[in-house]
């Protein structure tokens, strides 16, 4: 009888402590965590298979879109230019590309906006040249045949590198081709050099082996990779864009917290050997923001586009309205340094 009483009292005490712990846990969870995701909203994104778009690949693979209430359909492409072309054609709601691709598309009259920059690097792009063609320094590129994908960051980088070394842009011959052919054409000798991004840089280096000479030029150009959409779509789907921004912020956090796992995941998704990708990964910076400095780059690219004849003659456009700030301002305003 006394034992029963004692046992009952112990249970009452244990129940009281459990109840208190649950209340504290509930309050703590409310205090520390975000609310659950509402009903799923649909989005389609044209997504190139390049490391530059790693945050979107991670967000899709880790289910961050679903967590934020988005049902995202990924439309794979080979590079950013192809992604923006698909988006402009209405085959995807959003696309991801470098600012070079964005500027060219915008200057052709597309009412486009950048919702977020999610990548930047000054050491990603490079010119890989054949040493046996007498190229050992950037100035040796004069008079050479250089492979580029016209209208991409690769072409702009080559331009910036030539200017940096005071070489007239007309001093080289540009050969337009898809980035996937660069390694092969270099090896065959139809090209003296190529200007491209990762992982094509790596592929070209591997193809030429000791014959390869590589020129980076961090003081000439910092490439960015952006989430781009039609301006009317971005404004009309502000909540969905906010969710998308939250998802890629989660991916950024994952990459910062577990870089090795992020590297393995992206390498697996892009079908690149992890060890080959490891040195590349080190020079890439994944951070979601919208910076004032990006406007300067956009304007520089616009000047190049005008000089190259990719846009009708005129003045450099005002890109400020092309930056869609609302989503990032709503989620993490301190990441928006655009003067406003």
């Amino acid at each position, binding site marked *: 009888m006394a034992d029963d009483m004692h046992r009952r009292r112990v249970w009452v005490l244990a129940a009281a*402590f459990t109840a*208190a712990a649950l209340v504290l846990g509930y309050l703590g969870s409310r205090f520390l965590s975000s609310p659950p995701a509402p009903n799923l909203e649909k989005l389609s994104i044209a997504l190139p298979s390049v490391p530059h778009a790693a945050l979107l690949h991670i967000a899709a693979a880790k289910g961050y879109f679903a967590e934020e209430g988005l049902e995202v359909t990924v439309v794979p492409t080979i590079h950013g230019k192809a992604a923006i072309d698909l988006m402009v054609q209405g085959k995807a709601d959003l696309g991801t590309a470098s600012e070079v691709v964005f500027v060219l598309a915008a200057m052709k009259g597309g009412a486009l906006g950048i919702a977020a920059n999610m990548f930047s690097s000054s050491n990603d792009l490079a010119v890989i040249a054949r040493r046996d063609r007498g190229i050992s320094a950037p100035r040796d590129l004069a008079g050479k045949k250089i492979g580029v994908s016209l209208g991409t960051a690769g072409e702009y980088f080559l331009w910036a590198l030539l200017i940096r070394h005071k070489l007239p842009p007309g001093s080289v011959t540009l050969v337009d081709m898809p980035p996937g052919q660069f390694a092969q054409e270099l090896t065959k000798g139809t090209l003296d050099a190529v200007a491209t991004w990762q992982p094509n840089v790596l592929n070209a280096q591997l193809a030429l082996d000791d014959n390869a000479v590589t020129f980076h030029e*961090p003081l000439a150009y910092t490439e960015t990779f952006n989430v781009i959409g039609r301006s009317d779509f971005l404004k009309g789907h502000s909540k969905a864009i906010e969710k998308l921004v939250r998802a890629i912020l989660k991916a950024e956090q994952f990459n910062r917290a577990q870089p090795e796992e992020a590297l393995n995941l992206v390498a697996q998704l892009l079908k690149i050997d992890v060890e080959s990708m490891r040195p590349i990964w080190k020079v890439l910076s994944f951070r979601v923001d919208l910076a004032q400095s990006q406007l300067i780059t956009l304007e520089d690219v616009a000047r190049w586009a005008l000089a190259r004849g990719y846009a009708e003659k005129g003045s450099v456009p005002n890109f400020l309205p092309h930056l869609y700030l609302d989503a990032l301002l709503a989620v993490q305003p301190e990441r928006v340094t655009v003067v406003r």
Partner: protein
Amino acid sequence: MRIGSKESLATAILLAAVGVIAAAVWWTNVEVEDARRQRREASELARAQTDLRLVTFEYVLNNHERARAQWYQVSRRLDELIAASRFSRVAEEEILVGVRDRRTQGRQIFDELVSVSADDRTVAPRAELNRRFEAQLLSRLFILQQDNLAATFRLSDLATERSTAAQRRLLVVSLLGLALIAMIAVAMSWLIRRDVLAPIARLQHAAQQVATGNWSYEFGKGGTDEIGQLTRDLGSMTQSLRDSLGQVERSNRELAALNTELKAFSYSVSHDLRAPLRSMDGFSLALLEDYGDKLGEEGKDFLRRIRAASQRMGRLIDDLLGLSRVTRAELRLQAVDLSALAREIAASFRSDPPGRSVRWEFEDKLSMRADRELMRIAMQNLLDNAWKFTGKTRDAVVRVGARMRDGRQVFFVADNGVGFDMAYTDRLFGAFQRLHHAEDFPGTGIGLAIVQRAIHRQGGKIWAEARPGEGATFFFTLGESEDEPRGQDNPAG
């Protein structure tokens, strides 16, 4: 678990909770101070970078030497600030590394910008290329400066976040600690109510039961803690008391039976022994009166001796009965005027024998709470004693009075008679004990024994002080008997 162990455990948990909160407060303070320092450093960096941008614009606008000199001056200050900055966390360190790298690039670009000559900008055929080169340098410089400024603000934001996070952690830890303390307080209250107050209430109830005479009340087994042990001890104690009480009751019954027997014995003694003595005395007197002329002087002397012996034995029997009555008499405490009582008793001595002169000195207002009859017996014997032992003293004085000793009233009966040797004081109050020859001072030797019993019955003490030839003083107290008597001069002289 014992109550002491529970109390120690609760105290340990409480102290641990307080310790955690104190550590959290200390840690938060360290964090906040560090964050404040970081914000201050970030602010210095931002100010220097703003200055750098200003002089960069001034130089780009005018190519003025003053602006160029200021640029390098600010640049050095900025480098010093970056070198002196202390950011321990990985994210902050990465940002600072980025700032440092961009600073290096920026300085290189500015050096190149300064080296562009006016001719480079104007003289064909390279003017256009140089213009583009200079524009590229400027763009890169502004981008680097803008990015560095943004990064510095990010450092400041991170410091603010750290400070906020530390304060939030402190809040959470404090709330959890307080909740823990509150839970311990509730648990302690519950445990005290269950393990201390409730058992004490049961013990109190049991004590009340025992106090009202319910000696058969059971205290129960009790728990394993201290109060449980106390309950068992009290139960054992009550059981012992119960056993002792039974023993006392049995003894009382036996004593009552003995008392009854004693009464019967006393009655028998007073009547059965007295009758033959009266016969011996009566017939001896008859022989003397009726046949005195036929007996010689020697025969009459023998008869007178027989009569004297039988009368002395009669007095002995009376004194023994008196001693017995003093022992058995029921106490009736009341206010007794000792002065009046002594005067009344002394009055009976004044005419016996004729010509005897004693000065009686009685202090007034000697009052006490006592049994009047026992005090009468005691005073009768004490005064009788004083009268007797001053019989051979010229200017005999007998005094009755009281003194305060150690805050207590001590009564005395003093005389200046023959006194006695204090070496025999232990025999003084024994029955049939005599310190003088019966020829000198006749008596049964029972008087002082009766006095002692009368005083003891009333919870008092009696003692005597004397010197041979200088008199004796008998002191007594009533109602208490703690202290031993002390030496004192004879109050009779």
